[in-house]
């Protein structure tokens, strides 16, 4: 329902027989009350909000006191098992250390297998250095340079666990009729 007619005095029919000045004074009074009721309602609302928040805060304070009491009681109860708790924490920590080390060892194994699996049959490795980070330096020899080429090519093109391939040197020695090479790369089998 629209409130607009309330403010539109001209459209309202004056059915009273009161004098016009008195009617006008009544309308003014009504308008004034209505206008004052807005800040009054706001003030009441603010007071309600304030009281509400005060009560909420008081409730939370009570809850806090209750929680503090319960925490204190439970902590005292926990103290009885403090040694067992320390042992359990120690077991967890040590187990993690063991598992991390075992995983690292497995990584070494898998990385060595990954290196072995890409060595062409005619290539003979004379040196493999492998670090925990998977940094590998491999040296070897082959009678045909194409075999060395194949090895390096596989390393470069296969991707996957192999990256950062860098051929360090290739040399030929007539005394043993072999091509010697050295290559570094990173191998990381996931």
């Amino acid at each position, binding site marked *: 329902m629209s409130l607009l007619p309330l403010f539109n005095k001209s459209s309202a029919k004056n059915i009273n027989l009161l004098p016009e000045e008195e009617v006008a004074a009544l309308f003014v009074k009504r308008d004034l009350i209505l206008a004052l009721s807005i800040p009054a309602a706001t003030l009441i609302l603010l007071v309600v909000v304030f009281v509400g928040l005060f009560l909420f805060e008081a409730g939370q304070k009570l809850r806090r006191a209750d929680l503090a009491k319960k925490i204190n009681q439970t902590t005292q109860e926990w103290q009885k098992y403090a040694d067992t708790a320390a042992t359990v924490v120690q*077991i967890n920590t040590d187990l993690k250390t063991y598992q991390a080390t075992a995983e690292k060892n497995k990584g070494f194994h898998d990385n060595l297998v990954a290196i072995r699996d890409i060595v062409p049959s005619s290539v003979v490795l004379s040196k493999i250095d492998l670090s925990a980070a998977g940094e590998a330096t491999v040296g070897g020899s082959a009678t045909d340079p194409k075999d060395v080429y194949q090895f390096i090519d596989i390393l470069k093109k296969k991707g996957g666990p192999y990256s950062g391939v860098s051929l360090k040197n290739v040399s030929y020695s007539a005394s043993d009729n072999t091509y010697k090479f050295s290559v570094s790369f990173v191998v990381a089998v996931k």
Partner: protein
Amino acid sequence: MKAEATKLLKKPKLLMILGGIASLVLIAAIGPVLILPRYTAWQNLKDTNKQEAEKLTVLTNNVSVLTKLDKDEVADYKKLLSALLPETEDTLRAVSITDQISKNSGMALESIQVTTSDTAKVTKKVSTVPAGTSQKTLGVTQPGSVSSPQLKTNAAGALSSYTINITLHGDFSSALGLINTLGLVKRTLGITSISFSKAASTERATINLSLEFPLTRKAAASPEQRTELSTSQRKALEDLLDTLTIDASPSTLPVGKTDPLSP
């Protein structure tokens, strides 16, 4: 003046607007002074209580878990992990284990180099063996064949690990077998580097292996810290109890000799 006021009073829309403005002024005046601080305090308390409630839940859960723990089971796990990660340096045990796994791998052991805390000063940072310090060497040492053993310390200055370098002669498969064997050893030892070298004239490769033997790090428990052994952790521990078979303990030979200088 009075006439102006009467004129103003006859404009209801303007009165309403003025009422609205008065409301806004009230909100602007009272809100930041009385309402906002109450609201902030309430929210802060609410957040604190939420954290405290979570803390209580963890605490209650911890106590509940701890009361239900099987003490014998915990003792078994503790014993196992004390063997896996001892508190103090167990050099001779580590050497004996290294000797055993080398023999098990079928490779020929050439040398073992170990640095104990007696032979190197422990500092707060990682320290290497200073030049000229004595190293306990078993077998024949090939000079320059292994890197310098290292001692690592934790922040408190306590020894956290030590390294044993071994040199073996064998083939690639045996080396892989040795690495696999490490999974059966009742002592945590991790490879830090491995190096193979083989001269064309020799039949077997020389393998230099650097093994790190970590020591336990003291862990402290607090009531707020979640303390439990998960199902996966229990399973892992049970598996370790079943699978770890390689260990070393001192010999039990009769003692006392008439001539200790004779064999």
